[in-house]
């Protein structure tokens, strides 16, 4: 498995896209970094409003319309998924050996499973019935708290990439 990953990374580095990202196009990396930070803010802010409402902040908002912000969080996530993959293509070796990257991916999976849980357990239906001033069910509150925590952990380990494993 490890060997396959090494071979795959070596191959990635031979691609034209990898060359462009790794300095072939001077502005490739800075542009993606900027977009990555913009996407991060979109994701954290839009999902933050949804999560905090379920935890009781801004309770005068009914929950159903608040969930209309979710597509904007998804848009932020997609920006970051695309630019993130481009970083990986540009310099795969600095990620595969980096423990911070491993943790970042781990919390990404936690955040993803948490969202899956929210939709799969029918929690969305229950939450959408919540009117102004009403409390969310405990289950929804737990999911919201896990969501905020895991996204901040994704951010934390992403920021640690240069310091823990010498990525740039």
């Amino acid at each position: 498995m490890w060997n396959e990953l090494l071979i795959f990374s070596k191959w990635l580095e031979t691609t034209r896209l990898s060359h462009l990202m790794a300095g072939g196009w001077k502005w490739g990396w800075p542009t993606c970094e900027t977009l990555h930070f913009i996407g991060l803010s979109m994701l954290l802010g839009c999902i933050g409003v949804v999560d905090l409402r379920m935890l009781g902040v801004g309770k005068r908002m009914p929950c159903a319309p608040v969930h209309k912000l979710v597509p904007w969080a998804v848009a932020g996530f997609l920006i970051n998924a695309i630019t993130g993959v481009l970083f990986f293509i540009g310099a795969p070796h600095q990620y595969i050996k980096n423990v911070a990257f491993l943790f970042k991916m781990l919390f990404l999976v936690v955040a993803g499973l948490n969202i899956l849980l929210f939709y799969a357990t029918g929690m969305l239906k229950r939450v959408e019935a919540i009117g102004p001033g009403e409390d969310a069910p405990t289950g929804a509150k737990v999911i919201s708290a896990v969501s905020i925590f895991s996204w901040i952990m994704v951010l934390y380990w992403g920021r640690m990439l240069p310091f823990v494993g010498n990525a740039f």
Partner: protein
Amino acid sequence: MTMEFLSWLENTEFCTWIRGSGSIWAYPLILTLHTTGMGILVGFNWALDLRVLGVARQIPVLAMEKFFRVMWIGFWVNLITGIVLLAADATTKMTSWVFGVKMLFIVLAMIVLIRMKKKVFTNPGVLRKSAGGLPVSAGPKMQTSRTSLQAVVVLEQSLDGETQFEPANAKVLAVLSLVFWALAITAGRLMAYLGPQTGIK
């Protein structure tokens, strides 16, 4: 402010520790807090901007006032961590035009945020105007049993969220807010690539 002062500042024991100790509690922690604060301040501000521009318009906009406190937490975290990051790299950052551009857009974005709060949340004129178009029978009854602010929220909901709440002016502020923050983030990121650098990211 002279170069001597900046040089003294970045060579104080504290700044040397922040910059060069290699401790996970020094530069990396401050930087992570700075990024988290950015995500909170800009992200929640963007969510508010989107609402003002008509996304999720069934959210009673006044109920979003609570998030101003969240945004201010993000702001203060970033002001404090920002001052530490600046002090640790003072001679470079204070002579960097990119840093100047970043500060300019942050100041502009914060002015817009405060104007937005005034315009949409605390300007009674705007509220009265919006309540004015409602059936007379609905108005006074509600206002006797609740505060006028709550009454407006209820009335807004009773209108099925189709509000005439935000004057066109507020939408202009929302667009400016979106743009200024995007430019502030861009300048912040490009500080690692343009202008004078010490290699500290």
